[in-house]
């Protein structure tokens, strides 16, 4: 261990706390301490801007580090003796989730689960691609041969809950979000797949709109 006591440590505790102020994890008392320092110290704004920049650049760097390849999960499941996933596709929710840092996950979930007006025009699949906010499955909806459904997730459903439910049912988001927050969710090409979709549609608290295609 080499945590040296250096002479150049700031005399003000608030300066040490600044990174934690920016990442939003300080308690109320410490937060007030930092805010008082920020309001009283002319140079504090520069410190804050530097920390904010470091946080932004670090996040960008972290997002570029990628994700573990699919085989890690497959090997893990094999190791514990679980049945392999019926689909080799990586679900959109998984990918969105994996791409988001904890701080951004909330905003991502909000975007994904945006409240939609259930106007019929919105819910007709037009084939027109929505602005590319998120990636979709690699094969795309046209190449997908199994049963599928149009789904709008509830506005207050968390990303983790959505990802977990899709995983439990072995379902994959194959397209979306489309206008109105509509996702196309696909299932393995079997009766079980169709039943899994219907179970998704009946999931309490998760689904705002559901329709088999």
């Amino acid at each position, binding site marked *: *261990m*080499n*945590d*040296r006591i*250096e002479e*150049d*440590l*700031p005399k003000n505790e608030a*300066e*040490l*706390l600044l*990174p*934690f102020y920016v*990442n*939003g*994890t300080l308690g109320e008392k410490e937060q007030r301490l930092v805010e008082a320092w920020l309001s009283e110290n002319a140079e504090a704004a*520069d*410190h804050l801007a*530097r*920390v904010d920049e*470091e*946080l932004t*650049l*670090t*996040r*960008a*760097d*972290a997002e*570029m*580090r*990628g*994700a*573990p*390849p699919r085989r*890690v*999960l497959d*090997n*893990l*499941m094999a*190791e*514990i*003796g*679980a049945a392999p*996933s019926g689909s080799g596709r990586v*679900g959109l929710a*998984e990918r969105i*989730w*994996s*791409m988001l*840092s*904890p*701080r951004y*996950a909330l905003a991502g979930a909000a975007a994904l689960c945006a409240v939609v007006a259930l106007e019929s025009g919105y819910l007709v699949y037009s084939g027109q691609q929505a602005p590319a906010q998120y990636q979709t499955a690699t094969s795309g909806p046209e190449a997908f041969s199994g049963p599928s459904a149009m789904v709008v997730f509830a506005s207050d459903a*968390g990303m*983790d*809950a959505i*990802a*977990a439910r899709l*995983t*439990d049912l072995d379902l994959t988001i194959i397209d979306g979000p489309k206008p109105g927050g509509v996702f196309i969710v696909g299932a393995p090409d079997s009766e079980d797949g169709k039943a899994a979709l219907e179970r998704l549609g009946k999931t309490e608290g998760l689904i705002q709109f559901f329709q088999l295609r």
Partner: protein
Amino acid sequence: METDDHDRQLVARIAKRDSAALRALYMAHSTRIYRFVLSLARNETLAEDVVSETFLKVWQKAGSFEGQSKVSTWLLTIARNQAISVLRKRTEAPIDDEKAAEQKDESDTQEILTAKKDKGAVMRACIDKLSPAHREIIDLVYYQDRSIAEIAGILDIPENTVKTRMFHARKHLSEHFRRAGIDRGWP
């Protein structure tokens, strides 16, 4: 439902040998764990192994999770211990030594200078030059959004050390920036 509440439910299911719950927990957390290990080790194969070992541990130990920390913090702690264990077999330098493994500044200064038009690239190069201990704490604070207390638990160090270590990491980062031709006005 809060993320940690859902994670706790998954851990409870894993304790009952529910592999779908393990899969769901993996999907929610594996990428962040992978990136955390990469911040420490800069080795993709090692990071993959650590991710796998971490979730195997979760499968084996879910029943002993006492819930005193967030599940995500528990996972990071397991992952770090796994990574440290592997790295210790490969190097004699203590992993949490702030100074020992820092790269020499002169080694790729030109590379940084070439990249300096792209501040993100400079940041990447400068982070790479930090010691593993400094890269790790930068990741925990800025990317993993961990609190002082959580980091103290993950790294097994006092809370004051968390604050001073982060300060030193930032200072070194700024010094690397300055050597790369970007003066941030501090230190």
